[in-house]
């Protein structure tokens, strides 16, 4: 499907579990193995941006990381709004149509607010770079949605939106030349009620913007629809694999299982499950000199408790996932890795744990 042997790794999971850092580490190791690699991240911390040396220049385009690896490593920051703008530009039949859409007030809202637009644009970008064939491997860090389900469902939702009767109806001229709302006769009483309701709910002015937007967007539907279908296929192709990242602790097990099930139900290939930032197992009794110190003992007790909590979570998840889905855990590090060296070390550790698990 990608046509050029590009393999895709999509890193998914809830917000705050360390997806971005792991994606960067995986990218670095991929480049170290000789593959030309692109890491697309969504919202890295300032320090991770510094580590990869990707500032605003990398917004919506690829910037080479000075990684010194045999394979090239590029990084790019996702900017859904710019991706959307570019799609509109590409698919618009004329500059007049393009300007009408980009200048529409509802487009402004839609580009940032409609459920799934953000997620869809991430997949769109993935598709763009996968197709141009410059990279042998692309690693995509996904937006931090709680269940990341929005991300998986995004292409389907766009297709169903484009296929729905809503658009055909929305395409009808709702407003006459004077900008006044028409009663859509085909809808009869229902139509008038819907309009009246929307007027009272949404406001006539915004409604007019929306109707105008849908009309201006008309010529673009088919192109968008086709791409959404291709994106759907891309996510299901054998070259695409998903890495699911989870926070430790028993409370997270249900979330992670739920998400794993959704991935499988959607026909997607769940590769690796990574439980990140696991506290080490610790004995309650510390070294001799600490035992008399109540403060030290409290801290020790807390760390022992955290270690047990995380271990139970990992064990439970491993048992429930079964043998088909490899699970590896990564320890909580002393510092978040924000240098290339630290990212490389994290990537190596991940590789080692995957290998050990398989052997």
């Amino acid at each position, binding site marked *: 499907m990608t046509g050029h042997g590009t393999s895709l790794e999509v890193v998914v999971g809830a*917000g705050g*579990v360390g997806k971005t850092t792991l994606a960067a580490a995986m990218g670095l190791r991929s480049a170290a193995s000789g593959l030309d690699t692109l890491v697309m991240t969504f919202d890295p911390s300032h320090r991770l941006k510094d580590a990869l040396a990707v500032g605003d220049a990398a917004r919506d385009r690829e910037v080479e990381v000075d990684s010194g690896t045999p394979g090239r490593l590029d990084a790019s920051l996702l900017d859904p709004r710019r991706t959307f703008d570019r799609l509109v530009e590409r698919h618009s039949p004329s500059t007049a149509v393009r300007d009408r859409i980009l200048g529409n007030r509802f487009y402004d809202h839609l580009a940032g607010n409609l459920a799934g637009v953000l997620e869809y644009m991430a997949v769109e970008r993935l598709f763009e770079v996968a197709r141009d064939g410059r990279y042998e491997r692309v690693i995509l860090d996904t937006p931090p949605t709680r269940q990341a389900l929005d991300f998986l469902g995004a292409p389907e939702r766009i297709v169903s939106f484009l296929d729905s009767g809503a658009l055909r109806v929305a395409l009808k001229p709702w407003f006459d030349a004077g900008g006044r709302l028409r009663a859509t006769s085909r809808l009869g009483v229902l139509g008038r009620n819907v309009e009246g309701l*929307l007027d009272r709910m949404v406001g006539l002015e915004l409604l007019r913007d929306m109707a105008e937007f849908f009309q201006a967007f008309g010529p673009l539907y088919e192109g968008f629809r086709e791409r959404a279908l291709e994106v759907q296929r891309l996510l299901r192709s054998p070259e695409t694999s998903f890495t699911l990242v989870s926070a430790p602790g028993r409370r997270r097990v249900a979330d992670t299982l739920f998400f794993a099930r959704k991935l499988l139900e959607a026909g997607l290939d769940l590769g690796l499950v990574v439980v990140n930032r696991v506290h080490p197992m610790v004995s309650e009794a510390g070294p001799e000199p600490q035992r008399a110190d109540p403060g030290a003992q409290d801290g020790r007790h*807390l760390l022992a*408790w955290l270690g047990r909590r995380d271990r139970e979570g990992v064990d439970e998840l491993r048992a429930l996932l079964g043998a088909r889905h490899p699970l590896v855990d990564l320890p*909580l590090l002393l510092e978040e890795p924000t240098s290339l060296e630290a990212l490389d070390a994290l990537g190596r550790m991940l590789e080692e744990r995957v290998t050990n698990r398989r052997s």
Partner: protein
Amino acid sequence: MAAPLEALDRVNLLVVTGKGGVGKSAVTAALGRLLAARGRATLLVEADPRENLHQLLDVDPSGGDLVSVAPGLSLQHVHSRALLDDLVRDKLKVGLLVNRVLQSPIHQHFTEGAPGLKETAVFGHILRLLQGHGLRAAPRPDVVVLDAPATGHGVQWMMAPRLVADVVSSGPVGHMATEIAALLADRRRCGVVVVTLAEEMPVEETIDLLDLFESRLDLEPELVVVNALYPPLPTSLADDDPVTGLWRHRRRINERELERLEVRWRGPRVELPLLPIDPGPPLVGALGRHLELGLRRS
């Protein structure tokens, strides 16, 4: 600035915001416990798609109904989509047509796409409760604590009613949005609590959030809660076995990030410890005690 505890005693609406994974729900529950213990009839409203608060408080899931937790404390989980449909039923009197309108794809897509409408529906529900119109069976709450969804920024929630009020100038929805916008802008009646962790990304996001609150809404939170801090190391703890080393490093990250937060936020701040207690009423109780102590100190 007024003492934060007085501010919390005064408001009718507290909006708790924060990203996923920072312990926002536990803090919401602890705040609710604290306010109820101070004699105010308190209602916790949860608007995240997934119910969570009932587990922390060990009561049955709400499923949209009002659940009593303790004297003076109750809980309700709401679906913004359902509240929006209620609004339609409420505003569209032609009964026969209601279902067809609700099922109409135009209605679905336009109201889904219309900015701020779903958030406004949630606030509208809260406003009705505060005005005593919502629940016949239950007494009117003195204060509603809203556990806002973790997705997106809290700013989006707080801006929504004003956005709707701007585009819908007339009609019942427009009036309602205007009234809510006024409530949210009134510091005597409404306050915001931001929950975060003293880690790099959460603090960056919190600083962004504070900037957006200020620039877009001219709003300052009543309180920033920094959750799940590793305890300070006793000064006597000299030897660095691996466990102490991890503890020392994680605490150092906490302190570094607290300093970074302090550069941006000098207002009321409460620090809550990372506790070796499973999620549930004992954890909520312990957090509530730390919260009260912290509020008295700040």
